[in-house]
């Protein structure tokens, strides 16, 4: 080491290793924080999707009203006869899903009705399937009662059991 020399090669190496170690520590902390944030986002999206399905099938937004009796987990398909960009936006707003990519459809034995069709290619995606009652404006409580008490599968076109699929991405 020369007289008056301040920095040795050892010191420089030491500094580089120290900075490298510090950076590694920060990267590990960031990874663990990202994991926590990801779990939180996933939980929130799950709750949001479940709430949207509940609002669609058990509130005045889509629920069947059969002679004054409101049926939980049902959809009156006549409430969704017009499907375009405006109605889809309104439905997303009503389901509190304005900021998400959404795909919403219900499938019967013969057909599939798509209420909202968007490309869902997000980092977090939650999809829920549920069996619901699908009715029309003319369905009565007696139609439901007859179907419930029928021995063979119900074939009344005004009421049926269908599978609703709601996919939400964030």
């Amino acid at each position, binding site marked *: 080491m020369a007289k008056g020399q301040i920095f040795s090669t050892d010191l420089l190496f030491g500094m580089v290793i120290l900075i490298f170690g510090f950076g590694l520590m920060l990267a590990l902390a960031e990874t663990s924080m990202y994991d926590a944030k990801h779990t939180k986002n996933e939980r*929130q999206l799950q*709750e949001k999707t479940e709430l949207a399905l509940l*609002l669609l099938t*058990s509130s*005045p*937004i889509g629920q069947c009203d059969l002679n004054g009796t409101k049926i*939980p987990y049902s959809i009156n398909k006549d409430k969704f006869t017009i499907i375009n960009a405006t109605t889809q936006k309104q439905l997303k707003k*009503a*389901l509190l899903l304005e900021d998400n990519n959404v795909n919403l459809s219900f499938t019967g034995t013969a057909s599939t009705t798509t209420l909202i069709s968007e490309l869902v290619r997000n980092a977090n995606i939650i999809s829920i399937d549920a069996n619901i009652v699908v009715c029309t404006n003319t369905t009565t409580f007696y139609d439901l009662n007859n179907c419930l008490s029928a021995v063979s599968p119900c074939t009344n076109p005004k009421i049926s059991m269908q599978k609703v699929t709601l996919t939400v991405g964030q």
Partner: protein
Amino acid sequence: MQKAQISLDLILTMIVVLIIVSAFAIIISDFKSNQEIRLTKEQLDLIGQNTATLISTTQTINDTTFVIETNIPQIKYTDINGNTIGNYPKINFADENTLNIALLFNGKIMDSNFKISKSPNTVLVTDSLQYNGKLVIKNG
């Protein structure tokens, strides 16, 4: 080098060590402060989200007259003097489709908004929220 002389190397090392220790102290203090803010905001957001979900769920019974009482937990945080504080947040409707939840945190208002779906007749009674955390959701 003379006897009892302090070398330039030692002085420089001491300065570098002091700088590194001070930098770490500042980083740790800043980290702790940020963690406290995050932890408080997290508690506020969780309570807000749960309350917003509860209010939106009442849409399923919006054609009935109901009174729902729920207990809001205290938000716990450490103030600037290091004391642990527990306070109830303020909860209100910002508009027909937005729930606002706010807390006075170290002299500043920390708040969050959540989207809700509710009947126009659904109201919040928050008279005793600040004292015992009781929030009442009423319809009709």
